[in-house]
């Protein structure tokens, strides 16, 4: 379990799952067991990283996220455990 900046409750508990295609957010914390969180961090999901939601499988799960130059697909269960700070003006591609 890893929680950094404590100000996430200012915006509510937004998670990666709340992002729609083309929207971006800044990662705040990963609420997953240590090993899993570490694997995600090694893939670029670090607190403070900017993450853009991309395409998904039919039905929206799993979804591809663009982070640190790579595209990584996560299941809904994983995305739900990753809290984010939404960017003020979501961009659409």
């Amino acid at each position, binding site marked *: 379990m890893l929680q950094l900046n404590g100000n996430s409750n200012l915006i509510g508990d937004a998670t990666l799952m709340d992002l729609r295609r083309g929207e971006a957010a800044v990662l705040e914390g990963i609420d997953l067991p240590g090993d899993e969180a570490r694997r995600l961090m090694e893939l670029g999901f670090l607190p403070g990283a900017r993450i853009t939601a991309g395409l998904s499988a039919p039905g929206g799960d799993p979804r591809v996220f663009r982070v640190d130059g790579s595209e990584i697909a996560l299941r809904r269960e*994983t995305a739900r455990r990753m809290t984010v700070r939404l960017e003020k003006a979501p961009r659409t591609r």
Partner: protein
Amino acid sequence: MSDCASCHDCGATPVLETPLSGATATRPVALVGPPNSGKTTLFNRLTGMRQKVANFPGVTVEQHTGIAELSDGRAVPIIDLPGIYSLSPRSEDEQVAHDVLKGLRPDTPKPEAILLVLDSTNLSRHLMLAAPILALGTPTLIILNMADDLRNRGGRVDVDALAAKLGAPVALVSARQGDGIEQVFDFLAGAMPKPLARELPVLQDVPKCREWAGRVGSHARYRAPAPPKWTHRLDRIFLHPVAGPLVFLAVVVAVFQTIFTAAVPLMDGVRRLFEITGHWLTAALPDSLFRSLLVDGVWTGVGSVVVFLPQVLLLFLFIGILEDSGYLARAALIADRTMAKAGLQGKSFIPLLSAYACAVPAILATRTIENKRDRFATILIAPFMTCSARLPVYTLVIAAFIPERQMLGVLSTRAAALLGLYALGFVAAVATAKALKSSILKSGRTQFVLEMPSYRWPTWQSLGLRLLDRSMIFLRRAGTVILLVTVVLWILAHLPLQGGHAPAIADSLAGRGGRLIEPLIKPLGFNWKIGIGLITSLAARETIIGTLGAIYGMDPASHGVALQKAIQHDLTPGGALALLVFFAFAMQCISTIAVVRRETGGWKWPAFQFAYMGALAWVGAFLAKSLVA
């Protein structure tokens, strides 16, 4: 790093036999890199055909070794380690890489040097792996791969500045096109400078490592390339809510068509080849028991497995194209939600599809699944899929017992029965997967993480080497295990001698074996003749047909209709249904058992699988018989 010069000859690890020690006595050079860094392409480029694949003893990690030949004729052994994101040993892959690099594995000497392969189009993240690798103190060449992509997409990096910052030589190469490869050979020849002083981050701290990697990158004036335009364009089709599944379906149909339709003439060709050469052998050798052993035992037995080679090759050609092009990751993404319902994941889909041809290549194809528990679950259920060796048995029994009638206008009764058997195997697979994934192979649903590589053209070299590699594994099975089993089965069918001649099969050891297991199979409605067939079908399922033909004393060439008549004599309709169900569930295939042992690194899983599938087959067959009776 200062103590690294002494480490060269520190003698901490005794130089033991390596797979390559026959060719050269030097310690190997290790090839390390994250997944999707093009490491395997570079390995192929460096070693060409001079490769070997085996398993690291005691674990399920595949060990690729090869020899790079330098211009001065020296041969450098290269060991291709599994793709890793970090050196902290958590997964089995990382443990093996960690142990090899630190010289902790008794079977592999500590590497003389390291080739660290990183994707130059994603350098900031991939550089994170440089920290733990450089901290090892082994002379290291940092290879920035995919230079062509970086250039084409407008990225750049200052190689000299990077080398200065890292205190290690850096080479910008394109393994796919061969650009810059000479720098790697120069390093192997010892022409590259020795490591210098450098500062490294705290290795356990991922954010610190990433920060360090970013700093190093910006020092080297790294400019990340523009996003891959073509990949995004293609993904808009392949991951489109409507077009995506349609493309996926087309790919699945193409795979299916290839392994069932296109492979058939080739398989018939191989079968004919074995028949013709068998006749030659019969004609060339004097009539003796030895000839019978050679032709009926060894040659026919090996042929019955080699027949599947065309299917295996076509299947791996397909999987190779799908994987190397990057589509496999998209297919896995699309299939994931459906597979997750059975507790599996998207990457299990293609191996399970392959299992409809043959479980052996399917199990070899599970290599693409990184999560070990998901991989084992896929291996354990793959033999439930209706493989092509079951078809001749199904066809024979269905033709003998089910009258041909039209049902619902479109489907004949026989086709419906066949479909039912396919469905039965599928349901057993799904139920088993669910049971396994909620018990002994349980893993969290959050552990599925799938990197989407950019689309690339597969190279002929990489496809060719992959086919060679997989077919060698397959043929080695046929050449060793199957050879042994067929010889043993032949001996069982031809001993004890009666007056210098082989006995009638009923009086042979196999016949006695059939009688011995008769009490066990009697409740299923099988007599000792079927029992013999069950024993011999362990070599390959369809062998039971040849065996029954031999028991009923029929010419194998004309046994079609006559054999149907004969088994109608020996089986009740209930027994026939029981036999079908038994074949749907039982793991009667030595090749599969052998390959599961290889891929799971021991006898535990194949033993469990054999017992489980056997028990299920018995119970299923018993229920089927009781149902009809």
